C-alpha cells in the first residue's frame, strides 16, 4: 500500500521534523489535535497515576458499597466499596503500559520479519509468508485466548503474546514497503560497493521505510488497548487485583449491573474515549506522513491540489 510513497516521505523538506509536524497537525487536522490531546492526557494519567488517585485502588470502603458519585467518591464505588475513580486512573496506567509496549513489540516483530522477507525475497520469503498467512487466517482474539490459556494470564505474557501475534500480521505492510525501497538505485549502489547485508538493511532500507513503520505503530496502539480490554473482560488479561478497564466491567461490574450502573459506565467510557483519541491522532499522523492521501477533495475541481502521478497508483 504505502510502498511507493515511502521513498518520497523522507525527501519532503521540513524545517524541524517535530515542530513542523505539530504545526501541520494543529492547522490541518482539528480532530487529530483533539486526539493528540486525549492521547497526551492518557499518557500523563498513566504516568502520574500514583499522585492523581484520591484513594489506593485496592482500598475497601465497606460502608459505601455501590455508592453513586458524590463529593467523596467522584465516580462512585464498586461492589467491594473500592473508589471507581482511582481504579479507572490505574486502569489508564495498564492501558498505557500495554498499549505502548505491546505495540512496540508488534512493530519490532513486524519490522524484523517484514524487512527480512522483503529484502531477501525468494524461497525464504515464500516459506515465511505461508506461516504469516496461517496466523492471519485465524481470528486474532481466538488465537490470543488460545495462547494465553496455555501460558497463563499476566502483564508480561499479554505484552509478549499480543505483540507477537499482531506483529506477524503487520509484517505484510512492512514487507511491501521494503520491497518498494529495495528496487531503488542506491540499494544497488550499496550492494555494488560491497556493503554487508546488515548495513544495507539498517542504513539504507530501514530509514526509508520509517514512515510506514510509524504509521503501523500508530494504528496498532488503539487496537492493542482494545484487545487487552477484551481479553481482560473475558478473563484472559490482567489478573486481579490490578484494575484493567476490561476486567472492571466483567468482574463485579456486570454481576451487579442492575443494582448500580456506575461501575459499568466509567471503565467503558474511559476506554471508548481513549481508543477514539488515539485512533484520531494516529489517523492524523498517517495523513501527514503519507502524501498519497494528501490534498484534493471529493468533488472534482474544488481544491484538487495536484494530480497523482499515474505510475504512483499502479505499483
Amino acid at each position, binding site marked *: 500500500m504505502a510502498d511507493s510513497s515511502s521513498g518520497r516521505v523522507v525527501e519532503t523538506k521540513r524545517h524541524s521534523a517535530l515542530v513542523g509536524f505539530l504545526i501541520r497537525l494543529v492547522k490541518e487536522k*482539528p480532530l487529530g489535535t483533539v486526539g493528540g490531546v486525549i492521547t497526551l492526557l492518557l499518557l500523563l494519567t498513566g504516568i502520574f497515576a500514583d499522585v492523581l488517585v484520591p484513594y489506593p485502588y485496592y482500598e475497601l470502603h465497606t460502608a459505601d458499597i455501590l455508592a453513586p458519585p458524590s463529593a467523596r467518591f467522584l465516580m462512585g464505588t464498586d461492589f467491594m466499596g473500592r473508589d471507581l475513580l482511582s481504579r479507572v486512573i490505574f486502569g489508564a496506567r495498564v492501558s498505557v503500559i500495554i498499549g505502548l509496549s505491546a505495540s512496540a513489540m508488534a512493530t519490532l516483530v513486524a519490522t524484523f520479519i517484514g524487512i527480512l522477507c522483503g529484502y531477501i525475497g525468494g524461497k525464504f520469503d515464500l516459506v515465511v509468508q505461508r506461516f504469516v498467512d496461517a496466523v492471519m487466517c485465524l481470528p486474532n482474539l*481466538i488465537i490470543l485466548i488460545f495462547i494465553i490459556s496455555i*501460558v497463563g494470564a499476566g502483564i508480561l505474557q499479554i505484552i509478549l503474546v499480543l505483540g507477537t501475534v499482531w506483529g506477524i500480521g503487520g509484517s505484510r505492510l512492512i514487507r511491501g514497503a521494503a520491497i518498494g525501497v529495495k528496487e531503488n538505485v542506491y540499494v544497488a549502489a550499496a550492494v555494488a560497493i560491497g556493503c554487508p547485508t546488515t548495513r544495507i538493511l539498517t542504513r539504507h532500507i530501514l530509514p526509508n521505510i520509517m514512515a510506514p513503520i510509524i504509521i503501523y505503530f500508530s494504528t496498532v496502539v488503539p487496537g492493542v488497548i482494545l484487545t487487552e480490554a477484551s481479553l481482560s473482560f*473475558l478473563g484472559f488479561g490482567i489478573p486481579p487485583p490490578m484494575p484493567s478497564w476490561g476486567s472492571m466491567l466483567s468482574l463485579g461490574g456486570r454481576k451487579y449491573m442492575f443494582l448500580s450502573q456506575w461501575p*459499568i459506565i466509567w471503565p467503558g467510557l474511559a476506554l471508548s474515549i481513549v481508543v477514539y483519541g488515539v485512533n484520531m491522532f494516529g489517523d492524523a499522523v498517517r495523513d501527514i506522513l503519507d502524501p498519497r492521501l494528501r490534498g484534493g477533495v*471529493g468533488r472534482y475541481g474544488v481544491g484538487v491540489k495536484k494530480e497523482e502521478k499515474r505510475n504512483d497508483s499502479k505499483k
Partner: protein
Amino acid sequence: MIPTLFIVSIVIFLLIRLIPGSIVDAIVGQQQAFGIAEEVDRAAVERALGLDVSLATQYGRWIGVVPQAEGNFSGILQGDFGNSMWKPATVLEEVAIRWPVTLELGILALIIGQLIALPIGVFSALRQDTWGDYIARSFAIMCIAVPGFWLGTMVIVFPSLWWGYMPPIALIPFTEDPIGNLEMFILPAIVLGMAMSGMTMRMTRTMMLEVLRQDYIRTAWAKGLRERVIVIRHALKNALIPVITVIGWQVPILVGGAVIIEQIFCLPGMGRLFLNAIQLRDYPLVSGVTLLFGIGMVFINLIVDVTYGFLDPRVHYR
C-alpha cells in the same frame, strides 16, 4: 489454500505442544483443584491426550495419515476431529449444533454493518474536510472505539431498567418462530455490526476519494452528468471493489467479536463453545474448533477473492 490450511493445522498443533506451560500440568492441576482425583496419573493423562508418542506421530494421527493406537485411520482427513475430553460427544457433534447460531449472528451483523457504513462513507468522501465529514469520521471511529462488550452490556442494562425490556435468553429456532428468532438476534447483531461498520466506512471514504480523482470522473463531470449519477454509477461502483476485500478482512474481527457478544447475550454459538472449552481446558475440542475457524476463514477469503474477480474485470485468475 490447501498449503495454508496445512500450515494452520501445524501452527495449532505446535501451539498446544511447544508453548511453555504444558496442558498436562494444567489438566492435572485442575483435576486436583476440582477434587476429581487426589493423585493424578500424569502418564494416564498423557496417554488420554495421545501425547505419549513422538510429535510427528501425534500430528499424523490428528491429521489422519498415521494409524491410531487401535490401528485404524481416524483423523481430520477422515472427517474425525477428535472427541471432547469431558463430554461424551465428538468435536463435530458439538460444533454441529452451534455453528448456525454464529453464522446467523455473523450474517446479520455483516448486513447491518454495511447498511450503516456505505451511505456514511460515501457522504464523508463527497464532503471531505467539512464539518459533516468530521462528524461522519468521528462516528466511524466511535464505532471502532466503543468496545462491543461495553455497548452490549449497556444495551442489556438500560432498556431493561427504563422500559423493562429484556432480549430473550433461550434460543428460539428460526423455523419455529422467525420473529422471535430475529428479535433475539437483532440487538447482538447491531452491536457487532457497529464495530464492523467503522472500518468499512473508513475504507469506503478512502476509496471514494481515490476514485473521485480519476480521469473518468473528470470526463463524467465534463459530460455534464448529474452528481448523483457520477457518484453512484461511476465512482461508487469502482470504489466498492476494494471494500469487498475489507469485508474479507473483517471476518476474523467478526469471529472475535462473536466470542464476546455471544458471551454477553447468552447465545449458544461457536464463540461460547470455544470459551467453555478453553475454561475446561478441553484441548481436543479447542484445537478442533480453532482449526474449523481457520478452515471457515480460508473459505470465506476464497469466496471474497472469487467475487473480486467477478466485480473487477481487471483482475484475472490464471
